[in-house]
């Protein structure tokens, strides 16, 4: 791998340079408690937060937007015309992506690119640029037990913090090109930097509140399918708002709707994020619902998130902590998983 070092005082210049590669998005503070990836203009470069905890909205939205027109149609001619926006739009340069979110994107790819590629997602993803950044966990994080606290790939550049700057790992040809074009920003990586990286990792691993590996959790969960208290007790608190799925970096459910225009002939076929926490998700014609109760929908999310993604060889949940952090009912997903594991 190729490594270069970016000194702290050069970060601003680095961010400005990134704008040459597409629309730059980076984490900024949007409220008392929340961060979000927002579009960065020249004046906003100073607002970029390098040590944020987690963003409200997950990175997948840049490649799989909340709402997107798939086709325009003519209902008289029964014809559909592909919406070209995804193919012609500016590339997204996403700066400051945490390791767990990079694994999350890779999980998205496994469904939207690996088997039968979704053309819209693939077009955006392939031209997109991912710049990762190292982070330290808070009490909501458990990416370590998900094997998502460190990434070897899935990024173009990855910035790891050292005492006076960042060691940048170059993960793709695009990454090389960016580094080549901005060569004057960097210095050589030293032995001290390498030691700093190790020290950072040691510090990080000590900060997690759980340890080990939760791969076997999917079995534990299944064996506790009929757990006497947890499903009922926790799902009763749930408001069914869907925040947990909307903020999750790996939730992919969507609905498709046709919106005819007033002329009664043309219109758009749109896909919109959906949530398994909504009652309509499993509802079919005639009124039968495959997940009729709040408890069944609640359990469905736990089962889905802890299933095995064979392409990425991890669980679909990467342990980012969003579904707990942003739950208005205060449902603690991580704590519930610990309880199901028998308190460990």
């Amino acid at each position, binding site marked *: 791998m190729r490594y270069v070092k970016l000194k702290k005082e050069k970060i601003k210049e680095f961010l400005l340079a990134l704008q040459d590669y597409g629309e730059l998005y980076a984490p900024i503070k949007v409220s008392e408690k929340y961060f979000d990836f927002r579009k960065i203009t020249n004046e906003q470069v100073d607002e970029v937060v390098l040590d944020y905890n987690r963003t409200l909205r997950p990175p997948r939205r840049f490649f799989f937007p909340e709402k997107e027109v*798939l*086709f325009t*149609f003519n*209902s008289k001619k*029964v*014809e*559909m015309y*592909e919406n070209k926006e995804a193919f012609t739009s500016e590339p997204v340069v996403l700066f400051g992506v945490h390791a767990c979110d990079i694994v999350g994107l*890779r999980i998205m*790819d496994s*469904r*939207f*690119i690996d088997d*039968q*590629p*979704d*053309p819209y997602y*693939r*077009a955006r*993803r*392939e031209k997109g640029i*991912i710049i990762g950044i190292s982070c330290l966990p808070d009490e909501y994080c458990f990416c370590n037990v998900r094997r998502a606290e460190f990434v070897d*790939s*899935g990024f*173009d550049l990855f910035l790891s913090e050292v005492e006076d700057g960042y060691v940048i790992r170059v*993960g*793709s*040809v*695009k990454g090389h090109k960016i580094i080549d074009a901005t060569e004057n920003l960097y210095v050589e990586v030293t032995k001290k930097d390498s030691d700093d990286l190790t020290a950072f990792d040691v510090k990080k691993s000590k900060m997690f509140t759980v340890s080990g590996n939760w791969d076997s*959790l*999917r*079995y534990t*969960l*299944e064996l506790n*399918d009929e757990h006497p208290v947890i499903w009922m007790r926790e799902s009763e608190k749930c408001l069914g708002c869907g925040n947990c799925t909307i903020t999750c970096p790996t939730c*992919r*459910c*969507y*609905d*498709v*709707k*046709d919106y*005819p225009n007033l002329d009664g002939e043309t*219109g758009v076929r749109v*896909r919109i994020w*959906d949530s*398994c926490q909504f009652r309509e*998700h*499993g*509802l*079919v*014609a*005639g009124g039968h619902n*495959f997940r009729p109760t709040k408890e069944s929908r609640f359990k*469905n999310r*736990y*089962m*889905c998130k*802890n*299933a095995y993604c064979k392409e990425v060889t991890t669980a679909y949940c990467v342990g980012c902590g969003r579904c707990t952090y942003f739950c208005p009912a205060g449902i603690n997903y991580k704590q519930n998983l610990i309880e199901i594991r028998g308190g460990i």
Partner: protein
Amino acid sequence: MTEELHRRYIPDGQDNLYDTHKCRVLRVYKQTEMDKVFLFRFIDQEVGKNWKFKPGQFVEVSLPGIGEVPISICSSAMRIGFFQLCIRKAGRVTTKIHELKPGDIVGIRGPYGNGFPMEKFFGRNLLLVAAGLGMAPLRSVFLYAIDNRWRFGDITIINSAKYENELLFARELEAMRDIAEAENIQIIQTVTREDSPNRLKGRASEHLDKVMIDPKNSTVALCGPPRMYKSMFEKLVEMNYDPRRIFVTLERRMKCGIGKCGHCNLGNSTSWKYACIDGPVFDYYDIISTPGMLE
């Protein structure tokens, strides 16, 4: 794996996975009060020629402006360029489809789903059991078996519905009786909720003792509500049908049909499945290792 992504080659003008082929309605006939059978032909004959499906697969029928619905193909997989759908008026989209007349056009994408593994059925007897709308996908299996008669042993088909006037393809099966007899094909039609002349009374599972084929060396395909599967399994296994050769189809809410939209998901954390790509045909062991399948 951004690196890997960037290297992938995207061919120009590649098909959009959600795009449809235009198909023309050639014929519509009423099957029951709620069900109509539609015969379709691909407008682009090149597409039609190369369009093949397996019994048990489904298509997404698209009416731009109204929506899309998954529907099983009910015709024989041996006919090229044409296919039939038997559609029940159940809601918004299906009501609009019922208004279609010969000459009208719909969008079709598919075929989707795994379908029945017909090759595995070769050389064995075949027991087909349908309840209600389950006769639609099962008819495709049945017609396939007839078109490939020499590949199968004895065949029994049980068709059931609540009422006589809901029994799908009842007249067609009746009309086949003579040929069927000569071909060692047994046809049983039964109605559960009323007495009907010419029909047996009761559920399909109550007539298993009348089935003439030898359970050993038989394959079973069941299409109906999950309730039926539960009662069938017990009886079939008791009668020495091999559990490995019992197949069912499952219905779930479906939007995309290709494993993307998540609506058809089922199972638990170690057996997470999408009915549209992992199914809709599942075997006995899928069912017992996937909680919630029969709900």
